[in-house]
């Protein structure tokens, strides 16, 4: 990281000409009515993306964005105003708009900001991919293209992209704290289209990344693995049969299938939904919601991971939160507002897409701890079922608890053996009881490769998931073969 960013808390003051005294005055304006909390969130983001299609790096895009958001909380109310002009005048107007949420006039408390917040050092990278010459990044995409095409003559098209960003954030709060962070993020994605020459066409996708340096993609030739994995998946799916329909035993492979936890459990345990008692998990802390084999955590402190943060977007250091411990529901994911209202601890899960949004409780990296079975034992235990190893997206209705996630690579299990590939299908279940049906957990916990993005209330944030191989005794598989 360049020297100017060794002290990110000085970045905004230097760049936009603002002193801590000026920030105190803005927070003072925000607090002129009776409020519990106010904060200023500054963001400055550089991003670049390169895209390859038809063996040509023909798309390049870059962007610079910045802005400031002013938030005032009074009891359960949130006033939020933002502007992409980072000036004292604009911030004062924003503070006046945000404080409209609070009704009575109040004495402005004496404010002194400057207390630094302890933060992790999870991604102190030397350089971000933004600093790697564009030609070098373009050549990597071309190598991916060649590798995927060479894998099999049925590969007809390769679409690859590399996107990188560096986000500098700073949060100054009415409690006097100031937290700043430099957040690198990048991802490399590969899609491969294959044709069987008989009219059949299929797609395979793979990718990875995190809060990492460009070298990450070169280590152990990760880029090659992404290209081959996408090609392999497309080819496998060319021969896939109709997927079965109905309730059956499902074995989920390690890694990205952890999206099960994200949808079935994670969203339902976000503090806002529970404070409002609109989640199927509301009021269930201490109850059994999973088999004893299941311990599920959300951990924002894993170095270099896509879902990790040194501090969340409210300036709270991230943490490891146990959501389910040996089957018992233990905790919620909290931002400041919901933690205060529920008299719980903020867990460092207050996140936002950008300065244009107020924060809310969100997941970071959500995964299940490893068990003691081996993946082979689990497969062998199944007489008839589905083995799903790769997934696209998922969604949940947090109020009735029903969730879906869609397989993009799956096989039948017949008499303890993985047999034929079947087409992708959506799996549907009930969040509060799906984990009670987990009868085996393997010792092969893996986190996903780093391409996950979670959407909630119109805001997208990068997240991670993870899972060991598990056996679920009964999940509805949405195929066409009834």
């Amino acid at each position, binding site marked *: 990281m360049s020297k100017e960013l060794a002290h990110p808390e000085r970045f905004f003051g230097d760049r936009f000409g603002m002193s801590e005294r000026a920030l105190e005055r803005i927070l003072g304006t925000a607090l002129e009515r009776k409020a519990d909390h106010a904060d200023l969130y500054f963001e400055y983001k550089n991003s670049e993306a390169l895209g390859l299609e038809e063996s040509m*790096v023909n798309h*390049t895009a*870059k962007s610079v964005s910045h802005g400031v958001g002013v938030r005032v909380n009074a009891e359960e109310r949130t006033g*939020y105003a933002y502007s*992409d002009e980072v000036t004292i005048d604009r911030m004062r107007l924003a503070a006046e708009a945000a404080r409209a949420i609070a009704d009575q006039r109040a004495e402005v408390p004496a404010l002194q900001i400057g207390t630094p917040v302890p933060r992790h050092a999870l991604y102190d990278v030397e350089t971000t991919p933004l600093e790697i010459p564009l030609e070098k990044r373009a050549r990597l995409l071309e190598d991916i293209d060649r590798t995927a095409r060479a894998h099999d003559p049925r590969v007809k098209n390769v679409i690859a992209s590399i996107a990188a960003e560096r986000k500098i954030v700073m949060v100054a709060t009415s409690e006097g704290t100031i937290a700043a962070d430099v957040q690198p993020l990048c991802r490399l994605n590969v899609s491969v289209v294959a044709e069987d020459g008989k009219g059949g066409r299929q797609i395979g996708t793979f990718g990875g990344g995190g809060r990492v340096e460009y070298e990450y993609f070169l280590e152990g030739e990760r880029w090659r693995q992404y290209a081959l994995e996408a090609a392999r998946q497309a080819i496998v799916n060319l021969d896939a049969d109709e997927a079965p329909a109905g309730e059956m035993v499902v074995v989920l492979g390690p890694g990205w299938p952890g999206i099960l936890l994200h949808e079935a459990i994670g969203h339902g345990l976000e503090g806002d939904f529970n404070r409002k008692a609109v989640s199927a998990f509301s009021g269930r802390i201490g109850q059994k919601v999973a088999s004893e084999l299941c311990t599920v955590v959300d951990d924002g402190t894993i170095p270099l991971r896509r879902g990790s943060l040194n501090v969340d977007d409210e300036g709270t250091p991230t943490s490891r939160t146990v959501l389910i411990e040996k089957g018992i529901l233990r905790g919620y994911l909290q931002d400041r507002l919901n933690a205060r209202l529920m008299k719980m601890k903020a867990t460092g899960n207050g996140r936002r897409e950008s300065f*244009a949004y107020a924060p809310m409780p969100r997941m970071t990296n959500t995964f299940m701890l490893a068990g003691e079975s081996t993946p082979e034992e689990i497969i062998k235990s199944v007489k008839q079922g589905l083995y799903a190893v790769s997934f696209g997206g998922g*969604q949940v209705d947090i109020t*009735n608890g029903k969730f879906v996630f869609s397989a993009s690579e799956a096989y039948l299990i017949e008499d303890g053996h993985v047999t034929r590939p079947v087409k992708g299908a959506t799996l*549907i279940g009930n969040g509060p009881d799906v984990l009670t049906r987990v009868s085996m957990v393997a010792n092969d916990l893996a986190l996903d490769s780093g391409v996950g993005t979670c959407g909630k209330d119109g805001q997208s944030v990068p997240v991670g998931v993870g899972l060991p191989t598990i056996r679920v005794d009964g999940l509805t598989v949405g195929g066409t073969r*009834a």
Partner: protein
Amino acid sequence: MASFDVAMAEWALAEAKKKGATAAEILYSSGESLAAGVRLGETEKLTSSRERRLGMRVFVGQSSATASTAEMERSSIADFIADTVTLARLTAADPWSGLPDPVLHPASFPELSLSDPECGILDADRALQIARAAEKAALGADSRIKNSEGAEFDSGRYQIMLANSQGFCGEYEGSSFSLVVQPIAQDGNAMQHGYWYTTNRRFAKLEDAEAVGKTAAARAVRRLGARKVKTTRVPIVFDPEMAAGLIRTLAGAASGPALYKGTSFLIDRLGQQVAAPGVTIVDDGTMPGALGSKPFDGEGLPTRRQHLVERGTLRTYLLDCYSARKLNLAPTGNAARSVGSAPTVSTTNLYLEPGQYTPEQVIGSVKKGLYVTEMIGFGINMVTGDYSRGAGGLWIEDGKLTYPVQEITIASNLKDMFLNIEMIGNDLHWRSSVVSPTLKIAEMTIAGAS
């Protein structure tokens, strides 16, 4: 503040040429909005926003790059332009890239009434009052409505300017108003979420707030007691909201980028039958006052009214200039631009023409089947058309809606689903920019209980 106007755009385009660009395009967008939310009668949130973004696309011969910035000072913009030209030079020369053929730019723009002449952004008090009235109506509609995720009223204004180095320059502005209500119905331990909304460019044309609240409540209450049905194959009736999702997906498969990348199930289907003979789907960017209308598309070409599907036959693809050149077809005025990225394709106002049956007649024709009112998940493979999504709704027995259904999936292939549209409702309502009447599909697989 430095505001961006036509003179600035001309300066920026000239600056790009000076830096070595052979062609350039500027997009400036700005907007303001206020969102007001209430929950259980109390004010919950007020969000006020102000945004402006400058986007640029430059060409150096056949090489191009796209960039966007929030830094609006002239000196910053000059650096930004120089950077973008450098980026373009580093990009592969692509024989299909380029601005539109200049003769395709319109000489004048239609008046589309995209802005409300009577009403600007509502002040917080008024917006809160409307949200409160809507939520109150929902909470009072049924004793089983016991909780709420609140109601929100949003209003906003935006301005767009697009100019390029071959003389095109166009500007327009628009307004939008919307109200969303989300009550929660509860019966014993079971909870169900309801959702309803109204949105329009004209404030006076929004549906009545209380009516929106009551509809949201009814939609939540009717889901109470939902159960899983057994795995089976039956006719499926999509309500208008869910049917709109189907035609949006079809339009996605008909869009240029998906076609030339090989990621569409409609490749090589132009002129062929892709839907039942009664199905006509129109994309019309020229409807005055409509949510998806605009005087020109993201590359400065006129929007138009065109048949995507006419009596079952696929009549056109939806194309921007790049995908049109690749496919050796003419662009269709469907380019969409956001400041930060190269043009892509989107629909404008997309609708399936209404048929002759009332929704009751459509439902009445089904002996055993499902009326779908909710869907979750993304289980669509656009390459193959394979379709498998989470669904909820009401079970149809002997032509009548009976108990609510949940935790099932419905699956088929979109190619078959469109060919097997058996009945089309007469209930087309312009509630959003993509709308459909009730649709009945002859048969799909329901996966549920064993």
